[in-house]
């Protein structure tokens, strides 16, 4: 198993850096296969999701009504959108009036959840860094709005500078650190020492 992972990975990795003609084609082919297999995995995942919920219905476990509703909604959408097409009026109706309202409402809940999290942050850990965190969040938020006839001099400029300079610096540093960690994680798999596929 590790041989498959390491071989396929090295071909694609070398193809990233050294665009040799033959290797490039093999790499493009592997990436094309991977794209197809990710799509097949998605469909197998949907079937797995339906199966887990069907077992819940069959065993009459608590909340099996919800699982039944999930399976029916899944079948309804696959049949309707599969028949009429992904951008047919029916699909657009389902998307506009069911999926978007639900996802937007869930996103809207963050207004209360994040305000609560920010308000209670000092209760969890009061330190210089959590104070700076709340301070920079408030400055950025207040910097983006201004009541007519009432404006704090220099607030907008300071908020813009905060976002343009120190925030960019911190973001670059975090991204560089994350890239180092990602390279280490990927190379551990490509050398066969980490085997999440159960080798």
């Amino acid at each position, binding site marked *: 198993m590790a041989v498959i992972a390491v071989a396929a990975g090295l071909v694609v990795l070398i193809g990233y850096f050294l665009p040799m003609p033959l290797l490039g084609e093999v790499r493009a082919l592997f990436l094309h296969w991977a794209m197809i297999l*990710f799509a097949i995995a998605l469909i197998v995942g949907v079937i797995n999701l339906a199966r887990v919920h069907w077992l819940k219905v069959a065993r009459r476990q608590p909340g099996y009504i919800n699982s039944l509703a999930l399976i029916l909604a899944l079948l309804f959408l696959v049949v309707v959108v599969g028949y009429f097409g992904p951008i047919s009026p029916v699909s657009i109706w389902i998307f506009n009036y069911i999926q978007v309202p639900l996802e937007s409402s*869930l996103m809207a809940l963050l207004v209360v959840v994040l305000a609560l999290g920010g308000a209670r942050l000092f209760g969890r850990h009061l330190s210089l860094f959590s104070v700076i965190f709340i301070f920079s969040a408030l400055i950025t938020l207040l910097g983006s709005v201004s009541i007519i006839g009432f404006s704090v001099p220099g607030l907008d400029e300071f908020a813009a500078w905060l976002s343009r300079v120190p925030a960019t610096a911190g973001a670059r540093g*975090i991204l560089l*650190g*994350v890239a*180092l960690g990602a390279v*280490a994680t990927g*190379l*551990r798999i490509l050398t066969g020492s980490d085997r*999440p596929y159960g080798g």
Partner: protein
Amino acid sequence: MIQMNVSSPGLIGMGFVLLFLILMLYFWVFRKDKTTVVLREITAYQKLIRSIHLAVEEGHRVQITLGHGGISEMRGSSALAGLVLLRRVSDVASLSDYPPITTSGEATTAFLSQETMHSAYETMEAERQYDPESGLLTGLTPFSYAAGTMPIVGGDRITTNVLLGHFGNEVGLIMDAAERKGSLIVAGSEDLPAQAITYALANEPLIGEELYVCGAYIQENRVHTASLLTQDLVRWLLILTIIGGVILKLAGVL
């Protein structure tokens, strides 16, 4: 002769990866004993190790959610790091009454979490106790994944929730559902907006690169320690490269 127009980023990138590999090999071969390596304290991992053992003793459960980023590109790296943690938790908790549960929002990650737990049971010679339904796929889009994960993180017997993977804004809803039940939340992601949310809501946030060293911190494994030492060394090489580049740029050479 194979005609190859190699771009300079390609060469630099190749050189960087080879250097990283060689250093990893060096630290793996020559720094045999892990005890000589002292690591700075990351309270998230200390509390996580303690809560995993407590969960096993008191018959509670650990929940690990791996995000919806899949396993390819940069966003997949945090899920792969999460699978390393899952393996360690499975080793410790596989013989307890309530083994860990994992949830994810992408099919391949869900299958890999099932395989990771399965091989942990195989190693423990307890394959019959492995329950394939403990590696769940809870939704296929970010917010439906959150909607499917929220009831599970607040479930009965779950006292520790670990969120390691690629998340979007929906991570706030998952952490709120866990916080309502008063469980310990350890969270980390490679996505920047998600890190801002985890810093505000998690008991123990993991910032940036910290989530990638969970193997070295909670699993005495020489390869993970070697890759951590390599990260540290390459960090200083990067810093020197940046400073050198800036000096040359100011001098007008670059």
